[in-house]
């Protein structure tokens, strides 16, 4: 064991300097990159603080600072109601989807049964069409089921998407086999294996998916617009779209509304991002 260490030491002082400087350089690099990434959105913040006729003026910072846009967004329409709608719909979809998809992903990854790969391919093939292609028959179908203009119509069709199943399957494939086998030997039912062993292990991926599903449905627009006519069922993005007019939209309100709407998901992500980097516990392996 001395040889490798000798080699490292033989690297000399330059190597040590690099090792100490490395993290600092990386930190600076990451910080700069992060700031650059966010900087275009600085314009959005500034635009939400400017009056309407200044939105596209060449200067970035407002000449007349104003909070009137935010005030308008909340008072012109029941924006809180729409946020609540979005929250309810996105939240419900996220919870149900996480549950269904993790079950399906677990089965497709870890259990052996006839037709496994074929079923997975069929499921995956549903990923190959996006909403614009299927929206008309889907609308007809949902209408036949009596779910038009209802929360059910907003929630149920949005749960089923092969993306989550695919991601979870890949994740579960990579989990060491030993963990599952130990539980099976103990005589646990498959549901118990899923519930008590696999789910806790998949916290990173479930955290990621929770953020994705919530975000996708929080920002969803085309399907909610298609399936609802009742203003009480509006989701936030439709409310923001109502600030558009035929020729000159009120971009200041749109930016203010969008800034507000972006916050919950960002908060959700910030809370969940610790889970993302939780390693799979290896205790019990050795």
């Amino acid at each position, binding site marked *: 064991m001395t040889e*490798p260490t000798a080699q490292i030491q033989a690297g000399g002082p330059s190597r040590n300097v690099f090792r100490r400087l490395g993290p600092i350089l990386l930190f600076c*690099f*990451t910080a700069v*990159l*992060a700031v650059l*990434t*966010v900087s*275009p*959105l600085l*314009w*959005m913040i500034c635009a939400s603080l400017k009056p309407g006729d200044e939105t596209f003026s060449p200067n*970035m910072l407002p000449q007349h600072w104003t909070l009137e846009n935010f005030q308008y967004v909340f008072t012109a329409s029941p924006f809180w109601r729409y946020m609540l709608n979005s929250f309810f719909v996105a939240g419900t979809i996220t919870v149900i989807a996480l549950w269904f*998809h993790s079950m399906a992903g*677990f089965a*497709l990854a870890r*259990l*052996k*049964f006839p037709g496994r*790969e074929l079923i997975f*391919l069929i499921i995956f093939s*549903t990923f*190959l*069409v*996006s*909403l*614009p*292609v*299927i929206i008309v028959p*889907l609308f007809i*179908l*949902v209408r036949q089921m009596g779910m038009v203009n209802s929360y059910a119509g907003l929630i*149920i*069709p949005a*749960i089923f*998407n092969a993306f989550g199943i*695919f991601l979870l*399957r*890949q*994740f579960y*494939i*990579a989990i*060491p086999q030993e963990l599952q086998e130990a539980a099976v030997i103990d*005589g646990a*039912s*498959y549901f118990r294996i899923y519930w008590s062993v696999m789910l806790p292990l998949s916290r*990173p991926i479930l*955290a*990621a998916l929770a953020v*994705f599903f919530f975000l996708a449905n929080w920002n969803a627009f085309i399907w909610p617009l298609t399936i609802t006519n009742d203003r009480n069922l509006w989701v936030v993005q439709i409310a923001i*779209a109502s600030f558009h007019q035929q020729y000159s939209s009120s*971009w200041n309100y*749109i*930016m203010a509304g969008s800034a507000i*709407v*972006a916050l919950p998901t*960002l908060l959700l*992500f910030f809370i969940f991002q610790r889970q*993302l*980097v939780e*390693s799979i516990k290896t205790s019990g392996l050795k």
Partner: protein
Amino acid sequence: MRTSLDAPSKVEKRPAMGRSGPRLKRSQREALAAYLFILPDALGLAIFVALPMLFSLSLGFFSVNGFGGFRFVGLANYQRMLIDPLFRQSLWVTFVYVLVLVPALYVTGLGLALLVNRPMPFVGVFRSMFFVPNVVSLVVVALTWQVMLVDKVGFINRLFEFFGLSGYSWLGDPNITLYSILFVTVWFLMGYYMIIFLSGLQEIPREYYDAARIDGAGPAATFFQITLPLLRPTSFFVLLVSLVSAVAGSQAFDLIYIMTRGGPANSTSLVIFYIYQQAFQFNNYGYAAAMASFLVLILLIVTFILFAVTKGGRFHFT
């Protein structure tokens, strides 16, 4: 649901009395459990995705005017597709788009994930900052970048001028616009793929890295010989998903729809956008369905090949 799943284990534990037939083998139990696990999703997908999908695609053999007029035309739509210059152009645009986007997303996603996977001060803040572009709605993305990239007074052009370079028409020049859109797309999506890679990186047990360090491997060697190979399930996922999304997905469609409407001069008219135009602007649902079927077919073939080559995306590690 719970009762039916627990039932097999009850049978397992109870001795043969009361059940005169052979009890289920372990493999049958497993299969049953698996089918039940998959059932909710399979049912939902079948009803809400597969069914509309089959219906939509079958429209490819009809001429549909969108107001209730149906007419069977056999292969006419497909024949039209073959000679339509706009369709061919949109295929080319999509090809370039995919060729640039998929590797770009892979590299940036993985790069960012590696960067923020280590403990450093404010790492949570940095992760959030990289993800912020994906959080804001596309309307904001489109408007923000319009202001950034507009001729002459856009911030990017002003920056160029500041350094003495001549500005470009990032969104108005047919030769450049597609690449500007690609840049915006990468900016928008890199946080998304960063998250996927982050969770994939967590699956690599610490011990491998420790062993590598003890063996004196430098960062590059560790990356290429430990990280990358062990990331294969995630990489497979990212490549396939970004490919499909770039060709047929909403990720591709939404941004073009809002920012350029396929222009300037059809230079950003992706296939999925052209399909949308034909369906919802031209009222040629049948033709749109034919093109969509073609797309699905191509993607299915690519998927089959990728699955065959990687043995179903299952990567076994020694």
